[in-house]
């Protein structure tokens, strides 16, 4: 009953790029969308986040905790996104990157506390002053997730977030991300082409387009 995709289809020049999607994701659950590249996985995510390109037309509705997202701009939807690129802001230190996500009217002391705790959970204690570009890929990925979560999103979208990590790191980061989503108790939608990425026991949806 939390993130609902109702009869979603996306049209490009009047033809739908995949079969209509119906999904309900409960808090703490992760639903995975699989499919070959070019099938429209990421486009579906952008429809949910509210950043759908103008060349597409969206049909169907997205509900978040019963609220219709249709007319809300992206920044009002309160949906977090995680990309395969970490997209940390290179001109700020780690603290700045994280503080950027924290809601207004939080005192400096509180912010520091929040950041400190967050870094601890990610095993990156004391990284506040570090330059993002000095971090390893895995570290960056964790910071990137922390940043998304510190904005207290009511849902999280994951756009192939592990595809750039090497095999040994992948498992570690994946476990970290999934545990955080559980802890936050928010619905999450994961897009990937790697079956290994799917969380155990999660719903998997294959995005197809019927021939003809």
């Amino acid at each position, binding site marked *: 009953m939390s993130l609902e995709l109702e009869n979603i289809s996306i049209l490009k020049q009047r033809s739908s790029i995949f079969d209509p999607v119906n999904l309900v994701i409960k808090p703490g659950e992760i639903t995975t969308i699989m499919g070959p590249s070019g099938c429209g996985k990421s486009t579906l995510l952008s429809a949910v*986040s*509210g*950043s759908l390109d103008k060349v597409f037309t969206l049909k169907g509705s997205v509900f978040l905790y019963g609220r219709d997202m249709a007319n809300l*701009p*992206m*920044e*009002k939807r*309160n*949906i*977090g*996104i995680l*990309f395969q*690129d970490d*997209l940390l*802001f*290179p*001109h*700020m230190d780690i*603290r*700045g990157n994280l*503080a*950027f*996500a*924290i*809601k*207004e*009217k*939080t005192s*400096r002391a509180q*912010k520091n506390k929040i950041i400190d705790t967050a870094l601890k959970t990610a095993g990156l204690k004391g990284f506040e002053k570090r*330059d993002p570009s*000095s971090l*390893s890929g895995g570290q960056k990925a964790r910071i990137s997730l922390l*940043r*998304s979560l510190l*904005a207290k*999103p009511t849902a999280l*979208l994951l756009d192939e977030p592990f595809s750039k990590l090497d095999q040994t790191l992948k498992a570690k980061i994946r476990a970290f991300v999934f545990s955080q989503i559980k802890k936050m108790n928010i619905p999450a939608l994961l897009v990937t082409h790697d079956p290994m990425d799917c969380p155990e026991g999660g719903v998997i949806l294959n995005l197809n387009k019927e021939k003809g």
Partner: protein
Amino acid sequence: MRLFGQEKTYIFPVFVMGLFSVTILAGFIGTLLPSFNYLPVIGHTNLSLSVWFDFFSYPGIQTSILVTIFSGMTASFCVVTLAFLFISVSYENALWKFFEKILSPVLSIPHAAFAVGFGFLIAPSGWMVRLVSPVLTGFHTPPDWILLNDPLGISLTIALVIKEFPFLIMVAMGALGQLDIKKTLLVGRALGYKKEQIWLKVLIPRLYPHLRLSIFAIIAYSLSVVDMAILLGPNTPSSLSVLVLKWFNDPDVNFKLLASAGSLCLFFIVLVSIFIVYLIERIAHFFLGPWITNGKRSSFLALFKPFIAFMGICIILFTIISSVILVIWSLAWQWRFPDFLPTTWSLNFWAKGMVSSFDPVMTTVVTGVASAFIGLFLTIGCLEHEGNYRKNQTNQNQNSQDLIGLNQIRKKRTNNFIKNIHYFLYLPLLVPQITFMAGIQLLLVIMKMDGYWITLMGSHLLFVLPYMFIALSATYLSFDERVTDQAMLLRRSYARVMLSVKWPMLLKPILFSFAIGFSVSVAQYIPTMLVGAGRFSTITTEVVNIASGSDRRIMAVYALIQQCLPLIMFAAAIIIPKILYYNRKGMQV
């Protein structure tokens, strides 16, 4: 992968750095010595401070200096602020796309030509007042308002803003390609931020380092501008740069000493101003951090969106109307206040102007094309070197994974090295022209090298090269090296890969930077006068000469011819790739 020829690219930056530092240093010394009373030819051989005392006790000099600082700094500040706000609210929207199309013709309008048109637009007897006179105002003779040449230099400041704003936007357009704007906006919005706020808090701070040198150049230009200041600036007293030029040209040769002191003072003002900006950067860095992370997601900027867009439109509109006015003047016979259009028309001045400007136009074209060609050669050489250097460095970084700290240091060093080349390239834009060109003239005469076309062209190159570098570097350095790597695997010849793959793919930006180089050469006045020993008249020296007379109609003809030359070049830069690649969709970007 490193192939023959690739290692040798260091020659380019070394050559450019050598050329630039030697000429500027020589010019600087040629100005420094006279300011300490050393100019043997007029019998001054005792080093002393007397010139400086004379300089600071010259009537009205304080006002001159203050006006210079006020107009230059205000203009720079407004340009930068306006440009940042404009980018923030209109990136990629319809207005932005319009700007992308119109920017190069707007930029190619020479400062002097714009100043003439702008002056006639806003003067009390100008077009704006004529539009409503006498019907609405009752003015049969123009009102006695101080709109032009105002003592504070406000009209000059506005004109500078209008002329420099498109320049900064053009530089920004190049640099923005290097930032991951789309994704950054997505991340920011996913965190709940409004677009404008993401621009202000994330993208502009990242854009700033790319624009820094251009901003310094704008500051230096605004402080030392001569042609626009003569036409629009105050004259009792004039701004310092105009005063210096007057002294240089004073028949009383003792004023030469004063002029040297004045131009050094001007240089000092530029230095201090740039240093102040540096301090502001530091302070901003300190205060902006907390502001960026204060968590505020909405921005008041959204409210001003229409206003900022309006300012942008106004700037373009003023530039276009200034040119339209020139067209009308060039076709006028009699045109008096309060007539909105000339009462009688004539093609006489075009007929005369076309004939008498033929030789200067030829000189201009030959010099412009030659200096832009050499400029292009050197620019690409430097950029190729820089690209190779960067690639090398990243390879090293990837090879040694554990030495993160060490790589950081190394990376910083590389950056410093690259930055140094940039500063050298920018030197001619950061030092006021008058400060070192007069010294260079002396040097050239001593070496008996003045009055030759080749030295004239070389002096243009000093100013052509930096602008070409600004125009090309962003696109050139962000070229996808994988393509050339692939090609090298196939052809294994550096030169051939460059000629057959990389440069054809970059044809449009290369031609564009060529056009910019050409238009910079066209606009040079002081170097042409001083180095060319008056033997070479270009269309710009003709415009300035005619502008010292009273006939606005022939002046308009010359100014329009002057405007046309770069325009033709820009048109060619747009059309040639279209023709060559008419059937290649991937090249139509």
